[in-house]
């Protein structure tokens, strides 16, 4: 594919891998977090770990919107769909298998709830228009990447006077969980690969606090393998000189100021929740969005009774520490025994790309190569 394959060139990858190998100081350990789930996906898909020296470790961050969804919110969605016959609950595909306290959306669908997978919020609105005698509830998830499309869909529903379209808003924002991670005293991270998709919306500026206040470099990166390697190269270069600043590797897509039109739409439709629970990270204040006053009549949480019960992460679950890079997956008390990919307890085991699921499935076979074989 044109304009894609260029960023997957294996020879250039070897060159970058060689540069990284030359730039790292032997004996020093580099722990870098890729914030975004999309990066984690690329890292696995292309086997980027295998191209890195052994002392460069990638830690998978909290940027997978599916994995961070607390069980209570899933229960709320299921309750709305299962208790109200008129409701068609719609959501993105990767939400279908995320466990609530008792079941997933897929289980609830098998139990009779009308739950349908859509590819965009506009598809959900289309279903609403095609089924005027039903109420279509869109279970909105995602960071700033997907929030604007939810906002625009709600604006359109309102403008067109569609009365049977509602939203359960689970949109979250990226900066508060990053700050929460950075504030924890046992943090062990040296730098960040910044979230490329989120940055197309919010820009690069919101991440300036990371070097300014915490002295850690952040490089916003694209999602092709060369993007990620180049970002790692840039972070290692900063660490070698003792610098820390925000850099933008993904300039071909991410403007410094983000996308003002998208931000305006979000500002009109959403307002900050006082706090929101993150699976594995606990409550983080002002970290999520709900519908604004002006859009309250489209808020399914106000129209329907939702249990709103907080389902605590099991005490033994140590996802937070895995996310912060304090412990490795296998050091968690429940890893591989009570918590497995088939019956996941914590966020890191839920998604196949979560740190724990990846280690459970592939731990024995990853990073098998000694550094000297990695690159020329």
């Amino acid at each position, binding site marked *: 594919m044109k304009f*894609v394959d260029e960023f997957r060139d294996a020879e250039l990858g070897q060159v970058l891998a060689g540069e990284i190998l030359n730039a790292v100081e032997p004996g*020093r350990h580099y722990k870098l977090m890729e914030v975004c789930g999309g990066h984690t996906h690329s890292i696995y898909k292309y*086997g980027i770990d295998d191209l890195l020296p052994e002392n460069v470790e990638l830690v998978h961050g909290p940027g997978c919107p599916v994995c961070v969804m607390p069980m209570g919110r899933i229960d709320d969605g299921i309750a709305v769909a299962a208790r109200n016959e008129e409701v068609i609950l719609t959501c993105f595909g990767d939400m279908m298998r995320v466990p609530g306290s008792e079941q997933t959306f897929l289980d609830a669908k098998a139990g009779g709830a009308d739950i349908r997978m859509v590819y965009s919020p506009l598809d959900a609105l289309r279903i609403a228009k095609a089924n005027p005698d039903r109420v279509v509830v869109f279970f909105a998830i995602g960071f700033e990447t997907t929030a604007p499309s939810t906002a625009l869909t709600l604006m359109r529903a309102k403008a067109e006077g569609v009365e049977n379209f509602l939203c359960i808003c689970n949109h979250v924002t990226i900066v508060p969980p990053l700050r929460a991670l950075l504030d924890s005293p046992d943090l062990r991270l040296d730098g960040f690969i910044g979230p490329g998709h989120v940055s197309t919306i919010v820009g690069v500026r919101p991440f300036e606090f990371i070097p300014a206040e915490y002295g850690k470099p952040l490089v916003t990166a694209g999602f092709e393998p060369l993007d990620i390697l180049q970002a790692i190269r840039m972070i290692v270069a900063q660490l070698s000189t003792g610098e820390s600043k925000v850099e933008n590797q993904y300039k071909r897509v991410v403007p410094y100021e983000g996308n003002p039109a998208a931000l305006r739409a979000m500002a009109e439709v959403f307002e900050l929740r006082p706090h929101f629970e993150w699976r594995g990270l606990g409550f983080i204040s002002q970290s999520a969005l709900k519908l604004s006053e002006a859009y309250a009549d489209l808020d399914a949480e106000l129209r329907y009774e939702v249990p709103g019960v907080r389902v605590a992460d099991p005490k033994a679950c140590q996802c937070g520490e895995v996310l912060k890079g304090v412990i490795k997956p296998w050091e968690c008390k429940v890893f591989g025994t009570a918590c497995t990919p088939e019956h996941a307890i914590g966020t890191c085991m839920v998604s196949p790309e979560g740190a724990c699921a990846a280690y459970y499935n592939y731990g024995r076979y990853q990073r098998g190569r000694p550094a000297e074989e990695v690159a020329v």
Partner: protein
Amino acid sequence: MTEPATTSEKRIGAGRPTAPGREQRVLEIIETARMKRPRFKDTRITMSHGAGGKATQTLIEGVFVPAFESDELAALGDSGVVTIGGSQVAMTTDTFVVKPLQFPGGSIGELAVMGTVNDLAAAGAHAQALSLALVLEEGLDAEVLKAEVAAIAKAAASAGVSVVTGDTKVVERGLADGMYVCTTGIGAIDERAALSTGSLQAGDRVLVSKTIGEHGTAIMLARGELGMESDVVSDTRSLWPVADALLDAVGTDLRCMRDATRGGVASALNELARASNVGISVREADIPVIPEVSGASELLGIDPMYVANEGVMVAFVAPDAADRALEALRAVPGCEAAVELAEITAEPPGMVLVETAFGGRRVMDLLAGDPLPRIC
């Protein structure tokens, strides 16, 4: 600022058992769990159980195989092989519930014939007789039925097989998507064949008979949910000419064949790796995919290796026979794009690894259920 590596390494896991010992123990627990026969613990059937991934495997190996105590079934081949009056006969059955009934490049009737013919071909048998059972929905347009009956007749004639018995049931409106079709087929095992799912050895080569992922992509796009259009057509065809050519060229050096339908080539490889307790190493750069399929997969975040085919044979051959087998394959009309794409390895048993085109490595596991589009 960054702490020296030594300090942080010391702190990690402080107060825990020494790292290598504990990590080793955890890995052993996982390995034991992986090797165990899967137990079926679900309380309801969900769509995942029909997707050909892990959930399907759990249902088959956890419920069906233990219940029927049949060695022929336990071999988990595409067909069961029984001895009747001294000759070896392959028998297989398949149910077709595809939506829409007609799609670019084929229809449910043609599929119902070829699917069964191909499962027999994979067992080394030329289909001789088919049964045909139809479940029709009240209100089905008679013209639609006639068109499918004609498609069945045409496909049977082209595959050289007779429909010798049948059954018809009608269910109330809403209980079936127009029509469901079930076919059962039998055929004598070819005398040139000595095929077994458990016969793979380190060094053996894996060939695919053509480009992959076209049937599943055509169906997904034909449903019209994605708002994408393309010229991709289903690859529905008889695979007996493929099996015939391979048996002719390499005879007993052909270890095993698999019709890579639901779950795609990746699932077929995983099933065989498990059945023969060997590893399989796939060279990603050699996977044959047409640009339309790789484009659609890219947009949806789906790997073509997991997408269904209806005309792709995966063949496992002895190392010395690989070149002859490939030459014979490419001489079959429609199989000009056949390639060798993987090699059997001794380690790690039961797993499929991919050498990525970018120079890294990853595990290609069975999917939990349907491949779901990703949002992040």
